[in-house]
């Protein structure tokens, strides 16, 4: 009943289409990959399945960031940390699955621990041989970190640029920590050489297709969740917190709780994205914590259009496809292109692709309406519906107040 109510709220036709596309891809791509021989024109090659599967994980990460940035106004420069933590949790499960097949053949200890002369498994590695436990940790660890971090940060009203910087410091601290060998996460090299997931070999086409389908379905579920949140009264409250935080406080809301909710949910989504990402790329190392990675996620979201649901997904897919193309064709130029993208989007496309498109459509409709029924007032019943529909993809106000150093 409650879920039903939740899900009706934010599901605009556009979002329904995207969810349908994803579900379709989750079914179709594995079929095209497995059922058709490589010679067939309908065959989807393995590398394509892996590549697009990776992009879908990125898209889920971008969507998670959009929930906090686009809807709640928290620019997190540390979302890569939650992604990486989810990835490490999955990586630990995959390491334990290797068992005695490692180079050193130790049934309990992963190779790197044998190499470091460790005698027994550290306590925090226990339980990761069970998938259900790893699955809980994939969500619990990023969620808990976000909760604790957010609890401190939002309660003491750290906002704006300050908040962005300390989220960056958070991921940087984790980067340094995971580089240390004695942290017990494989140090510099991270976790790799995975063999099985749930008993299936990770390298096999069928497993890869299944992982692709899982990523597509996870993204579809993520979209439904964000749409439901955004369409609820809480979603409206999030936007209100983004636009006028102190006003919400003076009408009795606690914006810190709103932010904490969004931040924690978002971190869990990022963790799931990371967990799906790791078996598809076959490695997780501390590089995923690099602050630069987290900032890149921000630009995907910005390009697609923050404060919209489809935007960040579109942005993540476009930018990463571009990255794949550039690093193949013109590797020297990729960073120029990415840097230019940052500048161009903030200067010329502040609402992102989807936001700009929506705005353009709204302007056109207004003109048409004005032409069609000049005499009637603005409170037409049809008008009401349209405005409500567009408020699900909440526009981000531009400009705003003058620069204030401390904000």
């Amino acid at each position, binding site marked *: 009943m409650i879920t039903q109510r939740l899900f009706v709220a934010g599901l605009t036709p556009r979002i329904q289409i995207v969810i349908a596309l994803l579900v379709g891809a989750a079914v179709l791509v594995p079929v095209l990959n497995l059922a058709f021989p490589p010679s067939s024109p309908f065959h989807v090659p393995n590398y394509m399945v892996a590549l697009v599967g990776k992009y879908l994980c990125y898209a889920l990460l971008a969507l998670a960031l959009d929930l906090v940035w686009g809807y709640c106004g928290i*620019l997190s420069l540390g979302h890569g940390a939650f992604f990486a933590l989810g990835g490490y949790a999955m990586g630990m499960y995959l390491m334990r699955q290797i068992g005695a097949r490692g180079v050193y053949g130790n049934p309990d200890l992963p190779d790197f621990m044998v190499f470091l002369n460790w005698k027994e498994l550290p306590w925090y590695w226990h339980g990761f041989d069970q998938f259900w436990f790893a699955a809980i940790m994939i969500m619990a660890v990023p969620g808990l970190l976000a909760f604790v*971090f957010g609890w*401190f*940060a939002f*309660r*003491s*009203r*750290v*906002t*704006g*640029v*300050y908040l*962005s*910087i*300390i989220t*960056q*410091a*958070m991921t*940087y*601290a984790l980067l*340094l*920590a995971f*580089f*240390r060998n004695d942290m017990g996460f494989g140090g510099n090299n991270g976790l790799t050489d995975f063999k099985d997931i749930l008993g299936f070999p990770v390298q096999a086409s069928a497993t890869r297709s299944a992982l692709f389908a899982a990523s597509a379905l996870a993204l579809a579920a993520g979209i439904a969740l964000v749409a439901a949140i955004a369409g609820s009264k809480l979603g409206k409250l999030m936007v209100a917190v983004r636009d006028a935080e102190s006003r919400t406080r003076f009408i009795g809301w606690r914006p810190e709780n709103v932010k904490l909710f969004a931040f924690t949910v978002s971190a869990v989504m990022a963790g799931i994205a990371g967990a799906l990402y790791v078996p598809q790329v076959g490695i997780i190392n501390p590089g995923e914590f690099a*602050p*630069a990675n987290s*900032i890149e996620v*921000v*630009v995907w979201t*910005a390009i697609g259009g923050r404060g919209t649901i489809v935007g960040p997904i579109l942005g993540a897919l476009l930018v990463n496809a571009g990255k794949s193309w550039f690093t193949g064709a013109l590797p*020297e130029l990729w*960073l*120029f292109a*990415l*840097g*230019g*993208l*940052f*500048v161009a*989007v*903030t*200067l010329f496309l*502040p609402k992102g692709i989807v936001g700009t498109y929506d705005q353009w459509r709204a302007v056109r409709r207004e003109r048409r309406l004005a032409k069609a029924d000049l005499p009637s007032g603005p409170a037409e019943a049809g008008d009401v519906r349209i405005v409500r529909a567009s408020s699900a993809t909440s526009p981000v106000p*531009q*400009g*705003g*107040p*003058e*620069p*204030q*150093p*401390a*904000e």
Partner: protein
Amino acid sequence: MRLLRALGLILLFAAGFGAPAHADEGELRTIIAKFATSKNFRETEAVVRELAATGDPAVGRPLGALADGNLSFRKSDGQVFIVSEAGGALTLLDPLSGGRSGEAASREVTKVRVNNSLRRAVREAIGALTLNSPDAGVRLSAAETMFRSPDPEAIDALDAAIAVEAVANVKSRMEEARAAAVLASDLGDSEKLAALKTIERRGDRTALSLLAAVKGRADGVLKGAAARSAANVRETLSAWDAAQNVWFGISLGSVLLLAAIGLAITFGVMGVINMAHGEMVMLGAYTTFVVQNVIRASYPGLFDWSLAIALPLAFLVAGGVGLIIERGVIRFLYGRPLETLLATWGVSLILQQAVRTIFGPTNREVGNPSWMSGAFEIGQMSITWNRLWIVVFAFTVFAVLLYVFKFTAWGLHMRAVTQNRRMAASMGIRTPWVDALTFALGSGIAGIAGVALSQIDNVSPNLGQGYIIDSFMVVVFGGVGNLWGTFVGAMTLGVVNKFLEPYAGAVLGKIIVLVLIILFIQKRPRGLFALKGRSVEA
């Protein structure tokens, strides 16, 4: 035999750079040749005394070799060599120069035989040669060497040397060496207790290990006294350690100050986070590299001036790039700090890649001018010149900025804009110009910070990335709108970092500092020196 070899080396060192008495080389060789003809230990000892009597430090090598049993002569012509064995064949080395003079099979040479009394003679000869050397430096290192490898048999030689020594610090080193020798000897407790005091006065790490060794093997009164002395030395040492840590902290703090102060200015005045700030530092470092290259190629004599030339250039290069960024990008984004952050991050990627394309991805070599090389010591602290100069430089930059802010019209304008932009604008201050120039100033300072950092860090396209997060931490910790906040923030972070390092290791120390700042900002969301009152909230 370690002591002997070490002393021999000191002699050689003195011979190489040497001022002291030089006998005629031919004369020395004549004497050395007598080793081949001496028939028994007594005759060999006579040769040793004859060599020592020349007073030439060059005799250290053959004497040392003799004591080690490496001195041989060729059967065929009676020529004396130092022999070193490698893979069956023997390499023959000239006894004076140590240069290679051929090879021989082991049956072709005969070893000059030595016994213990002969070894003692050699030791005395070398000890006398070094301890009585006319060069104070040689005497000092001899005393130091004898302290490190105490030998009771050297006491007499040391006593003799102490009696005639005129240079105070050489004399005290000799006394310490004598005390060490006394402790190693079988002399009475009273002598040894006095020796303990002497060593305790020395108060460094070698003294401590010596005392620990004495404590280990002595018993009774002596053991207790050694323990007390060791404890005292340890106390002195930990005080010096603290001082050294403070110095390292100030040094790190100065680097942070240089890197962060430009950031603090732009953030304070304009509310703009410049993610490309680190790249301005990098541009400054590369400017230094280019300046040094030009100087090396065209005017090698000016090399010691290269940094002085690079400073204004780096300021102009980084400041110019900053001005372009402000006019081209940032001014369109005022009032949108988060977007500015993203755009400047994009700029930083472009700058990094541009530098990588032009100069290559690898580290570039930037040299230290002579006045920045080397180190000196205060007590138990070692201070390198480049660090010292960077501290001086950072403080100077800070002082100049303070002056600019407090006493110039431009500084007044910047402060006005920091506190109330709209009011400043209505008072007729052209805020866009203040913004542009402030941004250029902040970038220019980053540029000169790059000149300084090029002296202590690798100059690579990633140079800036390494500093940017630390600089943010300084700014966040210190608060904006007040240069002193940045100063205190940088110094605190530097010192705390260096004090944590010995306990937690460099990486963990840094993590702890980051976590502490994240916690600190909960308590003081606007930093140590925040502006207060209604204006901030408006």
